[in-house]
């Protein structure tokens, strides 16, 4: 356990404390307890920069399940550190913002911050784990916390729908990723990412290579909302705005990008990887930007814009993967795509984070996010307007903001695709720069829509629920910090290049010598003319929007992906309901029927397939008269239960059978068993008598004891099978009995003389522990069922 481990689990630890602090100090906004942690962690991770910038990695390991090769191995390299800084940095700002955004009187703040901390810890775990299983565990935890946060306002139907959708899609991808991880393990025999990378040349021809790649990509694409899995992200906007800014824009949705970057050294040698990652990325870029224009909800525009920008980063990583094919000593001609990806990742977090916060402010102060109702807000919220201008212009790729720099690099990378000359990129590859350019025009259009429809134009006070005014200072500070970063990075991009970007690129592309230098002015290059074209055509399209908006109606609702998702959900729900209703009848006799029927089928088949049924009559002890009498009593008791006319009789008969069995234990000198059996029998008879009161009366029909053939067959079958197994078990002694071990060691090792008890508490203590846990769960279940039903009943009476 090192400080690094502590840093990663500290959010979980704080999550335990938050509800207690919340209860004790109701007057203080719970966010203040949370805020110091991400700030401290941010400073802590900053202290790694001197080490990572000279390409050192820090690895700390802590054994978890060493026998399976699963350990908490955390590795801080350039890529992991970049993400860790994003998570803690944006995390601090978001927590600060949320203190002003969420009212402490109206909201359940304790759960909110517990979920948020859960997410923060899980996300740190994802980006710093070197062990794939640990990574996967944290990965699923981020999906869960995202689910909980989207459904935070759980009384809204749309929140629940969005939460479920994100959960289904991302967990589906997560499971497929687990499959990919297992395939990787089968190929390499290790879960450690760094060790797999060292073997990456040997696994290229393995038949599992392509399936593993596809499975892992599926995980990454679902998480990072790539087309066609992007449909969950717009619905996730039902979450409180700080959450959207944090999870669904800056961090969690970038987990897929992180995974692709991490896995690039393993898979990028293969052309399929380059095509898939770049192809899905570029399609997502276009589709997201295109769909964003038709949105009317501010957060809807931002959601589709996030989808589109994620696609852009993804496509850059794909193209960057092609560089693995060239000699690593080659210059940085093709690695520019990866540099652009990392750079844009940072820029996107800054401008999109600030824009989400702006959307939150607008929503908070006007009561709506619909751009058809908004307008003219610049007079009421001058500061918010300034931040929005900076954010959107950076998003549109305008100078002098940081978005311009990364967009230029993006164009450079896309233009150079034509020169790569492998994987058929020289022919179809020409699509990349074209789609990139068209998508950038749409990006420009929706960026303008976002800022000008909200802040300029006619102010429509009659459509707003509240009278708008500038937001409180606390809500303005975080977006202002992000907006200043947009400008600072825009003017001094090389502040980041050797400290953060170069180490991150080096982690994605080991063995490459990366030299990052970002400059503002490249001369009159193709990229510059592409940007100019984007601006000119973008302005034209923006002005002419009402004329071509009809394009969007050409796509019939019927064939939309959302419709597909809904119908799949519907069909599967209906099918499972039909299936469940068929076997869940609500009668325990039906369930017993199923249980015993399967019991017979499975055991009988095994007995006969394995030819295990044997009877050996040697080594049997003689039967005493007393034992014969007891057996007779048990049989008579058991059989008479069937013919008992009342419940009371059958309960008493059942008790008699149980007591007789305990006499057997006495005869066979098992005092512990006898004692337990006696007491159990007493208590269960008492319990039966209590239940008795609630059971319906024996019906006339049942009193006649209509003989049911099926039931009879099954009951006789169970008896026969158990007898056969008992006989075979006696006759086949495959192993030596373990009894001797206990005889020898009970006193030696456990200092006890009662072997049965020592086995229970010591040798097999684990079993006992779980057994009492099961007992506890059963008791709580019964308590819950009966008490909840009672309370429900009372409520109905009141109505």
């Amino acid at each position, binding site marked *: 356990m090192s400080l690094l481990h502590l840093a990663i689990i500290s959010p979980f630890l704080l999550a335990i404390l938050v509800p207690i602090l919340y209860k004790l100090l109701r007057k203080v906004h719970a966010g203040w307890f949370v805020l110091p942690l991400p700030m401290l962690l941010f400073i802590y991770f900053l202290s790694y920069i001197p080490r990572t910038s000279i390409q050192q990695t820090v690895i700390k390991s802590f054994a978890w399940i060493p026998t399976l090769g699963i350990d908490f191995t955390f590795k801080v390299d350039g890529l992991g550190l970049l993400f860790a800084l994003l998570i803690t940095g944006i995390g601090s700002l978001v927590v600060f913002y949320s203190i002003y955004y969420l009212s402490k009187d109206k909201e359940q703040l304790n759960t909110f911050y517990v979920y948020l901390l859960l997410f923060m810890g899980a996300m740190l775990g994802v980006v710093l784990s070197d062990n794939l299983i640990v990574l996967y565990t944290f990965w699923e935890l981020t999906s869960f916390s995202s689910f909980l946060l989207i459904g935070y306002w759980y009384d809204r139907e749309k929140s629940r729908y969005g939460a479920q959708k994100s959960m289904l899609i991302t967990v589906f991808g997560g499971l497929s990723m687990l499959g990919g991880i297992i395939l990787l393990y089968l190929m390499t025999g290790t879960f450690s990412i760094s060790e797999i990378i060292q073997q990456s040349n040997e696994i290229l021809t393995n038949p599992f290579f392509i399936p593993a790649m596809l499975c892992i990509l599926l995980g990454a694409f679902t998480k990072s909302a790539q087309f066609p899995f992007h449909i969950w992200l717009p619905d996730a906007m039902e979450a409180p705005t700080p959450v959207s800014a944090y999870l669904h824009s800056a961090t969690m949705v970038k987990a897929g990008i992180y995974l692709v970057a991490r896995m690039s050294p393993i898979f990028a040698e293969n052309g399929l990887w380059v095509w898939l990652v770049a192809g899905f990325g570029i399609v997502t870029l276009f589709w997201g930007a295109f769909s964003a224009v038709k949105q009317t909800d501010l957060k809807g525009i931002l959601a589709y814009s996030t989808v589109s920008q994620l696609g852009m980063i993804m496509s850059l990583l794909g193209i960057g993967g092609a560089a693995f094919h060239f000699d690593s000593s080659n210059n940085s001609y093709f690695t520019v795509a990866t540099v652009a990806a990392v750079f844009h990742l940072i820029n996107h977090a800054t401008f999109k984070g600030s824009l989400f916060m702006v959307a939150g402010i607008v929503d908070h102060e006007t009561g709506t996010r619909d751009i058809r109702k908004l307008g003219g807000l610049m007079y009421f919220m001058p500061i918010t307007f300034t931040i929005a201008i900076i954010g959107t212009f950076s998003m549109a790729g305008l100078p002098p903001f940081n978005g311009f720099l990364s967009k230029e690099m993006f164009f450079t990378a896309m233009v150079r695709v034509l020169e790569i000359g492998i994987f058929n990129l020289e022919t179809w590859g020409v699509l990349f720069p074209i789609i990139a350019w068209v998508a950038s025009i749409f990006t420009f259009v929706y960026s303008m829509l976002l800022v000008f429809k909200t802040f300029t134009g006619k102010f429509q006070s009659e459509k707003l629920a509240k009278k708008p005014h500038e937001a409180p200072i606390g809500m303005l500070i975080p977006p202002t910090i992000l907006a200043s970063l947009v400008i600072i990075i825009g003017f001094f991009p090389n502040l980041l290049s050797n400290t953060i970007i170069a180490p991150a690129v080096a982690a994605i592309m080991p063995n490459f010598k990366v030299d990052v230098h970002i400059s503002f002015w490249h001369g009159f290059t193709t990229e510059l003319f592409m940007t100019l074209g984007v601006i000119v055509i973008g302005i034209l399209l923006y002005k002419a929007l009402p004329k071509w908006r009809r394009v969007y109606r050409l796509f019939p609702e019927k064939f939309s992906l959302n419709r597909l998702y809904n119908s799949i959900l519907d069909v599967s729900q209906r099918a499972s309901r039909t299936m469940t209703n068929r076997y869940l009848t609500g009668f325990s006799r039906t369930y017993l029927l199923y249980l015993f029927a399967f019991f017979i089928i499975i055991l009988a088949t095994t007995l006969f397939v394995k030819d295990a049924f044997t009877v050996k009559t040697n080594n049997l002890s003689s039967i005493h008269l007393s034992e014969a009498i007891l057996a007779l009593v048990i049989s008579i008791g058991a059989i008479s239960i069937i013919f008992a006319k009342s419940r009371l009789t059958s309960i008493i008969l059942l008790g008699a059978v149980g007591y007789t069995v305990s006499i057997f234990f006495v005869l066979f000198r098992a005092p512990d068993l006898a004692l337990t059996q006696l007491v159990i029998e007493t208590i269960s008879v008492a319990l039966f008598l209590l239940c008795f009161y609630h059971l319906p009366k024996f019906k006339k029909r049942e009193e006649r004891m209509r003989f049911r053939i099926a039931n009879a067959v099954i009951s006789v079958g169970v008896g026969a099978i158990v007898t056969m197994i008992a006989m075979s078990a006696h006759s086949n002694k495959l192993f030596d009995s373990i009894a001797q071990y206990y005889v020898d060691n009970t006193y030696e090792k456990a*200092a006890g*003389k009662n072997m049965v008890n020592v086995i*229970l*508490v010591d040798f097999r*203590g684990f079993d006992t522990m779980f057994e*009492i*846990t099961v007992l506890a769960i059963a008791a709580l279940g*019964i308590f819950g069922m009966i008490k909840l039903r009672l309370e429900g009943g009372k409520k109905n009476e009141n109505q």
Partner: protein
Amino acid sequence: MKTNDLILQTTTKVVVFIILLFAVYIFFAGHYTPGGGFVGGLLTSGAIVLLLLAFDLKTLQNFLPFNYIYMIAIGLLFSIGTGAGSLLFNVPFLTHVFTHIDLPILGDLSLHTATLFDLGVFLVVVGVTMTIIQTIGGDE
């Protein structure tokens, strides 16, 4: 459950204490002679059930005002805590230790962490049985 049985009530008042004492004995004796936390717990709940049968649920709850659900939780904490405690000494989960001490009057006494574990079992068993019986019995 209305009972007005004087003989049963009078006997119960005496017998319950005998059973409870026996249960405690059985619990502690478990390591060397038949018994242990499980049987001890069952016997204790047997005694309580006897009270329940002789008197009614209300009287019982006045007499023994336990929240049996808390008892389950405390029991589980004891058992799992004993197991987890061994992790602090860098030995595998659920490793027990024992020692002998000499006390002036009681003589040689064996102390064993397994007893703590067993105490957890005891509490869970009492808690579970009584929760079930009380909920079902209290359901109108």
